[in-house]
């Protein structure tokens, strides 16, 4: 296929620009597809040429208001329309598109040209700024996460109070935001307040607001977070750390949906969906007497328990992928992934800090890694090295026996050392479990190890 020099020059020019460009003929079949188009859509030029453009481009407007169709019909070019396309991996890629007609020498329309720009970086920045996360931002294919995904829509639909339990760094706020974005309240505010970080007096004024003159230096009325969240959702984070006095006030809000701002006797009604989060075992606190039972029952209407990262190791590669994409965009880098050896190290780590810790580890690696793959020496010092800091923890197991040992140890740990409960979960007889512990040489903690929940 011989090309004229002009055609060749055009091709070179098109391939050197960052925006995707493709052209279609009068039958909507793709006649050219530049390099950037290949990269953004994930479809190669060979596969794209000759295909219907909607089958390649897969845009959110293909059916309803295809920009090319409108442009070809009206003769008016489209400029900078923001939409999304689905790439070959099923990911939504936000793009801004422009379309124009292609005419021959006599001015007859023979096709169209569409250019599109990848807005992922902009989206990522916006998300960081506005913290507007959605369902799609939660990553996980493990059974534990699947169960949560199944529950999410129904819980989101209802107005009932939700309690999200999970260790530090498991994504409680992320889930709360996802719930909000799936709920009918998504067009109103989502407000988060950390109840554990503030002393009562400050918490009160933050939550309920105050009227001018309520105390020294209260010059103006200030609305509390509850009032700001009216119509929307409020997240009461670390609710287990709240003082008994504050607990009674919260109970009243939950029961009657009214409160008084400081310095006012006028009750204010509020229509807020309450989500509470904690990394404590609230049931235990109730038994101990430090948390009110009536408040507990008000909060515990629906409960979401977030798994620790070590209980969903199969999600680690997915999470690593997600973090790499995110940091690549935010830092304009081109890290390709992690090497096999690095992945092995990441898979065997215990993650007391859960997902947040994993994200920090990847961010750390990004500082040291210029591009290409992340190698073990890019990881934080505590993670590398042949000698493991944790006794009894083997390298990520490859043999069936080693995998079995790891799985059994995990199950026993999850049940606080209770062998019988672990055997039940594993679907084997307790005596079989004891036999395996012996033959596989599994080292275990004593029954009921000390509670590891950190405030």
């Amino acid at each position, binding site marked *: 296929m011989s090309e004229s020099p002009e055609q060749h020059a055009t091709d070179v020019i098109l391939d050197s620009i960052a925006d995707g460009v493709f052209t279609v003929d009068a039958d909507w079949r793709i006649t050219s597809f530049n390099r950037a188009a290949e990269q953004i*859509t*994930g*479809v*190669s030029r060979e*596969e*794209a040429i000759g*295909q*219907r453009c*909607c*089958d*390649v*481009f*897969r*845009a*959110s*407007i*293909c*059916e*309803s208001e295809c920009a090319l169709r409108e442009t070809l019909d009206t003769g008016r070019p489209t400029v900078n329309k923001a939409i999304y396309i*689905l790439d*070959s*991996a*099923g*990911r*939504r890629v936000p793009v801004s598109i422009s379309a124009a007609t292609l005419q021959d020498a006599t001015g007859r329309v023979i096709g169209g040209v569409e250019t599109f720009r990848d807005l992922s970086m902009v989206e990522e920045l916006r998300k960081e700024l506005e913290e507007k996360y959605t*369902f*799609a931002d939660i990553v996980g*294919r493990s059974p534990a996460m*699947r169960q949560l*995904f*199944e529950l*999410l*829509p129904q819980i*989101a*639909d209802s107005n009932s109070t939700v309690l999200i339990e999970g260790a530090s760094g498991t994504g409680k706020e992320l889930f709360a935001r996802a719930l909000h974005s*799936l709920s009918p309240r998504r067009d109103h505010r989502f407000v988060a307040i950390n109840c554990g970080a503030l002393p009562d007096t400050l918490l009160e004024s933050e939550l309920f607001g105050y009227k001018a003159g309520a105390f020294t230096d209260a010059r103006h009325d200030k609305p509390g977070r509850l009032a700001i969240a009216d119509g929307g959702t409020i997240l009461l984070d670390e609710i287990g750390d709240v003082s008994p006095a504050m607990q009674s006030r919260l109970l009243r809000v939950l029961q009657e949906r009214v409160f008084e701002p400081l310095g006012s006797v006028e009750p204010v009604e509020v229509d807020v969906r309450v989500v509470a989060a904690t990394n404590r075992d609230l049931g235990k606190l109730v038994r101990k007497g430090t948390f009110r039972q009536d408040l507990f029952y008000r909060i515990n209407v629906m409960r979401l328990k977030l798994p620790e990262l070590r209980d969903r190791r199969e999600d680690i590669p997915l999470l690593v992928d997600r973090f790499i994409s995110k940091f690549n965009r935010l830092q304009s880098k081109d890290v390709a992934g992690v090497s096999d050896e690095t992945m092995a190290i990441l898979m065997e780590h215990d993650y007391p800090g859960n997902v947040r810790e994993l994200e920090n580890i990847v961010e750390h690696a990004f500082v040291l890694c210029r591009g290409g793959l992340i190698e073990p020496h890019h990881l934080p010092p505590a993670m590398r090295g042949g000698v493991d800091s944790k006794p009894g923890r083997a390298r990520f197991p490859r043999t069936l026996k080693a995998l079995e040992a790891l799985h059994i140890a995990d199950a026993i740990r999850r049940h606080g050392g209770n062998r019988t409960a672990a055997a039940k979960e594993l679907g084997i007889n307790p005596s079989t479990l004891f036999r395996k512990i012996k033959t596989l040489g599994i080292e275990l903690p004593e029954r009921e190890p000390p509670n590891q929940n950190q405030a």
Partner: protein
Amino acid sequence: MRVAVPTWTGRVSPVFDVAKRLLVVTLDGGGEISREEAAIEEGLLTARAKRVAQLGVDVLICGGISVPLEAMLVSAGVRVIPHTCGTVEEVIQAFASGRLTDQTFLMPGCCGRRRRFRGRHRGGRPGFNT
């Protein structure tokens, strides 16, 4: 078994997240028993997945579908066959006769990862092996 295909101008709709019409065909023993058209207005993914499940769909054959929506459908017990393109009639015929894995029905750019036939209840389901 009830097989659903989102349609647009007689072809499989390219993006299921925004497809407006769904053709639901009841198949039995390789032959079609009945078909009906349903309109899907829901924009919110969770509502969309719910609607499909409520229509009693066993298998959804679609074009592009975003990962969260696919996950929701699978959680709801619907088997999803993505990355399909072609005319609706040909696709249904191909599925009924087990030929849907042919290259011709595969959306461009998707052969790197062969279509994953994902669905929770594959085990006990009688009928088609595609």
